[in-house]
């Protein structure tokens, strides 16, 4: 009886023998197995089942399953399940209270998103999303470019082996530890026409107080500027690590060849920073797509005004303030596709290079 249990355990893989050792042992077994197989067809059938089960359970994939199966289930449900559900919702006519009706699916919301009009689920006319899309792209590009340039400049400066490097690095990264709500409150204060630092400094030069936060022309730039304040520390860190990775022989060779500092950076060093630039760019642009928290806090609500309205704020407003759930889902799908366009190629190239 004891031997039977032990044999079951060893066949099913519940002992702690690694796959290699088992592979070696298996080569010795066939002889034994053919002997016991003669005892009757019932035993053979049972043994065949056992063999199949044991080779399945012994696979490393299954044995490591307890480790990754729960995270995978969570991620699968919350990320992929939710995305698919969102696409489904965008095809319904769900608005206001109640449950979504999954039986009548159509692309109506997408047509409204691109052309505007009055949908079947609302009595009001709904605007298309072009304004928000424009603002989103403008913000993404402006913010990303300035952030990267500033980060690069800072990294180059910090790389010159100045004193207090660690403290300075900590200070540059400090804004990244803040919540966007906090950043928005600080900058709201800085931009304030009467009491904000910016206007007070301008007034010292005789320029009258400028309305920044409520000014349609300056709004988006002001938002981009505050976001650059928050994020350029990250760009700096990425570039700094990349700069440190370039062997100093490159620097020296350029100097020996007579290049000025500026030329050296421009022709020799910067081209080598391409990987760092790409990875920082991906993170920063995807982030700009999500800049909702900042805008919501700055304008204390869902509506930052048309010139600062980005897809993220439009989506949340349509869904939560206007209760147009399905339309909100539609905008979210557009956002998702935009993110996919940015992230997809990046992930693919990482996969091909084996950096994943």
């Amino acid at each position, binding site marked *: 009886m004891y031997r039977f249990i032990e044999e079951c355990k060893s066949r099913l893989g519940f002992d*702690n023998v690694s796959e290699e*050792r088992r592979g070696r042992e298996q080569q010795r077994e066939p002889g034994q197995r053919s002997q016991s197989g003669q005892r009757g067809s019932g035993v053979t059938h049972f043994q065949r089942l056992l063999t199949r089960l044991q080779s399945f359970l012994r696979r490393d*994939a299954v*044995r*490591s399953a307890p*480790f*990754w199966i729960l*995270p*995978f289930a*969570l*991620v699968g449900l*919350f*990320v992929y399940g*939710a*995305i698919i559900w*969102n696409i489904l919702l965008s095809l319904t006519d769900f608005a206001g209270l109640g449950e979504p009706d999954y039986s009548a699916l159509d692309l109506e919301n997408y047509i409204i998103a691109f052309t505007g009009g009055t949908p079947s689920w609302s009595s009001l006319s709904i605007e298309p999303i072009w304004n928000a899309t424009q603002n989103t792209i403008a913000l993404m590009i402006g913010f990303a470019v300035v952030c990267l340039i500033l980060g690069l400049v800072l990294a180059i400066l910090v790389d010159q082996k*100045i004193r207090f490097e*660690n403290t*300075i690095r*900590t*200070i540059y990264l*400090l804004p990244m*530890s*803040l*919540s*966007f*709500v*906090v950043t928005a*409150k*600080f*900058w709201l*204060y*800085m931009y*304030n026409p009467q*009491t904000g*630092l910016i206007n*007070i400094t301008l007034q010292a030069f005789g320029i009258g107080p400028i309305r920044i936060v409520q000014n349609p022309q300056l709004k988006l730039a002001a938002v981009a500027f505050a976001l650059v*304040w928050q994020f350029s*520390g990250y760009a700096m*860190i*990425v570039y700094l690590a990349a700069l440190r990775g370039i062997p100093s022989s490159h620097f020296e060779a350029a100097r020996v060849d007579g290049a000025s500092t500026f030329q050296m950076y421009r022709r020799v060093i910067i081209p080598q920073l391409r990987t760092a630039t790409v990875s920082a760019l991906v993170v920063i642009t*995807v982030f700009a797509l999500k800049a*909702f*928290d900042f805008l*919501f*806090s700055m304008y*204390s609500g869902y509506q930052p005004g048309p010139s600062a309205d980005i*897809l*993220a704020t439009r*989506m*949340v407003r349509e*869904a*939560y303030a206007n209760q147009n759930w399905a339309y909100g889902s539609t905008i*979210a*799908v557009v956002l*998702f596709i935009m*993110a996919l366009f940015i*992230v997809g190629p990046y*992930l693919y190239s990482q996969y091909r290079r084996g950096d*994943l």
Partner: protein
Amino acid sequence: MMMVGFYLIPIETGIMTSLTTPASYTGNAPFLPPLEPVIPGTGSFSVQPWINAIAGLSGGLINSFVLVIPATVLSGLLGSMAAYGLTTVDWRGQIMIYVLFVAGIFIPYQAVLVPLTQFWYNVVPLQSIFVTVAASVPLVAEYHWKLLALIITHTAYGIPICTLLFRAHYKKLSSEMIEAARLDGASIATIYRRIILPLSIPMFAVVFIYQFTQIWNDLLFALTIIQFGDASVVTQELVGIGVSQSGTNFPLRMAAALVAALPTLIIYIFFGDRFAKGVTT
């Protein structure tokens, strides 16, 4: 270097303003410390705004801690386990699963908001479960179901980045050591418990710091899953504070912003080096 000034100025101005009494606040020189009457026009010094801020934000602070600590620990643990199962143990097909994880880092949260609201409010009867739980267990109030929903949500969305960070770390571990353990007869679970886990402690620090900051600072999920009310976390409460009929109370606002930022700031100042290192891997 003046760049340092650029970064510090908004915070410094905030600090100075937060220490002024609202009544005497004139806003003439916000970057100067409030030393009336020594420096005229700067307003008199007072810690009152801070006291008011802490009183006003106390509910949110507690809720934020209740939210952040379990979510951070869980997402870190699950990320480590997932990275182990997908990296240290070698099997076919694991790269595919891993790619699915990594893609999850980059999704814009808007893309899942409406389904999430539907899920927690209409599909999963968490609220009704909590009515009975709150009646029997002390310290648990009925509104805590919203916090639990948020904890699970943040854990799920934090797992991809934690897995990525741990995987980078596990790839560097010596595979010979693991092979030797396997040959000695250690099971996969034993290897994880005895070898990998102790070696991951530095990475756990990085992951915890990162996740704590991300979850504490989040507004979007809090807004849509908790909405406003008893269960509001500190980021939500911060949005509306200091605005009233009589105008904007800047000292209170600045004090509140600083109080809300304090936990992440403290963690960052003390553990910032590890954070910076983790971000570049």
